[in-house]
């Protein structure tokens, strides 16, 4: 039995949960995206139907409404990624091309989440294969380290987190990222990964174990993985 999809936690709540100062809240909407949809704008279902009718403008409407969610999801799943732009484009192209497969137009957002997860997982696997073949194949550039936008400690923790995640399987990595970085509820994770809730929980437990066992090798992550560490008390 799958739980109903709930909206993910607001960014402000997540930032507070993470202990980030309120004044560091980033601007929610950027020019070009903000003005895309006004009050009274078409619903997700309207956009989906317009896409099915082949209306080109609907593609932009779809993007304007969900680009931020998808982009953010991709960041959470993949971290700083040189192919981020292509992946974002790919998700929307897949959505537009496959709109005929959307059974319930009202669930456009969760459907896009599923496509994003699938695309990200595919990318992780492809990268792993290329890494495996790196002894003969051209090795792609590793993702750039995060720019110094947060404190040095947080930046290092972010780098180490993705270092640990890169060593995990695509499924483990996706589950872990959706739960702990993106902050999705288990029900949402189950739908996005197209598995039952119990399977999602079981796999997340495994993913958590794998993450922790690897993370112990990174001193920068020690404060978060050692029980009773200083971050736990804040």
């Amino acid at each position, binding site marked *: 039995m799958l739980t109903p999809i709930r909206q993910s936690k607001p960014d402000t709540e997540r930032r507070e949960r993470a202990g980030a100062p309120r004044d560091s809240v980033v601007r929610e909407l950027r020019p070009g995206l903000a003005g895309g949809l006004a009050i009274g704008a078409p619903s997700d279902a309207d956009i989906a139907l317009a896409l099915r009718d082949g209306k080109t403008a609907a593609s932009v409407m779809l993007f304007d409404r969900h680009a931020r969610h998808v982009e953010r999801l991709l960041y*959470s799943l993949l971290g700083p990624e040189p192919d981020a732009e292509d992946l974002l*484009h790919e998700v929307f*192209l897949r959505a537009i091309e496959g709109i005929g497969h959307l059974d319930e137009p009202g669930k456009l957002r969760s459907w896009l989440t599923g496509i994003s997860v699938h695309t990200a997982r595919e990318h992780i696997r492809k990268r792993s294969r290329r890494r495996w073949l790196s002894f003969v194949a051209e090795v792609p550039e590793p993702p750039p380290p995060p720019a110094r936008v*947060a404190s040095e400690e*947080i*930046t290092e923790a972010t780098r180490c987190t993705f270092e640990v995640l890169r060593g995990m399987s695509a499924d483990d990595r996706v589950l872990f990222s959706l739960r*702990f970085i993106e902050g999705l509820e288990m029900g949402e994770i189950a739908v996005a990964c197209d598995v039952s809730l119990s399977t999602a929980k079981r796999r997340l437990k495994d993913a958590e174990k794998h993450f922790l066992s690897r993370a112990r090798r990174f001193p920068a992550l020690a404060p978060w993985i050692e*029980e009773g560490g200083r971050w*736990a008390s804040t």
Partner: protein
Amino acid sequence: MGEHVNLDRLGGHVSGSLEQLRTRSDAAARVRAKLAAGAGRSRVNSLPSRIRIRKSAVLGALAVAATVLVFAFGVWRESRRPLTFVVGAAAGAAGASSPGAAGANGVIGSFLAAPPDAELPIAFSDGTRMSVAAGARARIADVTPRGARVLVESGVVHASVVHKSDTRWLVDAGPFEVKVTGTRFDVAWQPGEQAIVVTLHEGSVVVSGCGLADGQRVSGGQQLHASCKTGAATLSPLTAEAPAAPSVATPTPAPLTASPPQPVVMTASSLPDAPADAPRERAEHGSTTAAASPAGGAGSAGATASGASPAAAAPASPLAVATAAELLARANADRYAGRFDAATESLDAVRRRFRGSDDAATAAFELGRIAFDGHHDFGAAGDWFDTYLRERPAGALAREALGRAIEARHRAGDTARAEQLATRYVAMYPDGPHATLARRLASRPGATP
């Protein structure tokens, strides 16, 4: 639970850090522009992806190719590896055993002496089985990937050679050499008498040496007795009541010039009846086919060589009554089917019965082809092509015979003869199919003009 809380906090920090990075990026604006323009997948996303797929395919193909190469190399190495052999009970040849003797890996050149009351089996890695009869002595003088050379010091060696297209087995007994291509036979050698008895159960062999300098073919169901002392050679059919193996299993073969029953007896001197440098003419067992008809006549029954008894005439075989054209056609059919022994018998019959005719010359050419292509016996092939050229220097097959003679001599290592023929070929057929090879050989420094 504590760890879970910490991971939540870590995730929150990572998320915040990523969010700041994301908001600095203008990737979304670019993607929006692409979608608005109706652009498909970008080159960055699609083309390299295709290239990556191709790379994977290439890598896969390379991996497969490497595997195939390694496998092929293994097979090639295996095929180039000389045969091995086991001597003794472990060889397990047809239940033969040497009491108390354990099987051992054979050593090339070592002396193999069978005990007085038991056979000594030898098993080769290609499936060929030999057995040194009780009291006999032999050596495996050499092994190659295609066969071996066996020396019979004294007594009897039974052999069952596995036939393959490139099989090359030789059995030496004193001055005699038995060339084998795949057959079941026994060789008995008496050093004191300088006498050999070759008994063929299946297939055929060519025995040469001593009075049989040009080689004597012995086919299945025949027995050859030859002696260096007397110079006599006797080819006789095996009789049902006298099974071949027992007749040679004893170290003392039957008297060579009195082989039963009513044999065709050829003196050694009678065998090289053909011109000096011609390949040996073969003798068939039985009076009707064994006789070489010097006049190229009808091959009448009862024609014999060197005193063969007309009373021994057997029912006429097709080889004795068929026309030359029929025999040649039959030989061709057998050759195409890979039945080289049968083809050879038909051609031998043409050579004997229609001596001096165009058909006899054609048969010589065909025998050369069989020796060349079927048995890879390049020396014999060269002799047959030479025979054709001698008999029909301007015949329809003269150009081909000359060309193939060059090839045969060249492959047999007879460089001088090959160069000589090549010079002749270039002069006569400058545009012939063998002209390139002929020119190459003829232009060698010191080539025989």
